[in-house]
C-alpha cells in the first residue's frame, strides 16, 4: 500500500490480509486488519504518535511488543492504549492523546 510495505521478501512470505479503513486525527487511512495500530500508522507515514505531557516532545514507537509505553494513544475513546499490540479493525478512531489524556465516564 505504501513504499514502506515489503511486497516481496527473500525469505519470508507475508500472508494476504484484509484491507480496512481507519481514522487518524480526522483523516482516513487504510491498513491491514489485525496488524498493530502503530504498524498501520507507521506504514502510512505517521511516526509521531503523541507528545510527551511535560516537555511536549514528539514520541514514536520503540519496542513494538507492549513493554515501553512510548506508543500509547487514544483508540476508540480509550486513552493509554498500547498501539503496538492493539490489532487494527475496520472503522477505528485513533487520536493523539492530549497530555495524560482524559478518562471518559
Amino acid at each position, binding site marked *: 500500500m505504501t513504499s514502506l510495505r515489503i511486497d*516481496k*521478501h*527473500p*525469505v519470508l512470505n507475508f500472508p494476504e490480509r484484509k484491507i480496512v479503513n481507519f481514522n487518524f486525527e480526522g483523516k482516513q487511512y487504510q491498513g491491514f486488519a489485525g496488524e498493530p495500530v502503530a504498524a498501520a500508522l507507521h506504514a502510512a507515514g505517521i511516526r509521531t504518535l503523541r507528545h510527551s505531557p511535560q516537555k511536549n516532545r514528539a514520541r514514536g514507537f520503540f519496542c513494538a511488543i507492549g513493554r515501553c509505553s512510548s506508543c500509547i494513544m487514544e483508540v476508540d475513546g480509550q486513552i493509554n492504549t498500547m498501539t503496538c499490540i492493539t490489532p487494527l479493525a475496520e472503522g477505528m478512531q485513533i487520536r493523539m492523546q492530549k497530555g495524560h489524556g482524559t478518562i471518559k465516564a
Partner: protein
Amino acid sequence: MLKNDGIISPEELSPVVPPADRLARGPVAIIECLQDIPCDPCVSACPVKAIKMKEGITDRPLLEFDTCTGCGLCIPKCPGLAIFVVNMKHTPGMATVSMSYEQLPVPEKGQEVTALDRSGKDVGKVKVVRVVNPPGYDHTAVITIEVPADQVNNIRAIRV
C-alpha cells in the same frame, strides 16, 4: 583487520586459502570462518568428510584441501555465509567464485551483475554462470560468477 572493520586482511585469509597446486587442480572451498564460535553445520554438510573440527563445536572448521571436491554443498549450510568455492580451472585467465545469496532479485544464469569486494566496493561487472536455488536450500541461493583469475580472492559479493 577483521575484528575492527569486518574486512578479512590477506594475512588473516592466507591460512584458509588452498595452496597453489591444489587451486590449479580445480574447484575447492575456502572457509572464511576465522573465529572460535559454537557452530558446526558445515561438518555434516560435507559428503566426503573434508571438514573437521579439532576439539569440537567451538573450534574453527579445518578443510582438508586434498579431500575437498569443491562440490559446494557446504555453501548454503553455513549460517555465517562464510563459505566460497573457487575454480581456477574454469577457462584461461578466468576463474569462478560460488557464494550464498539471500536477497532479491535472484539473478539468472547469463545475467551481468556488479561484483563487490570484501568492503562492498564495486570492482566491475561479472557474468553469472550458475544459479542453484532448490527448495532444500530454503531461500539461500548459491550463485556462481565468472571473474578474472587475479580477482578470485577479492570478489566476495554481488549486487544485482
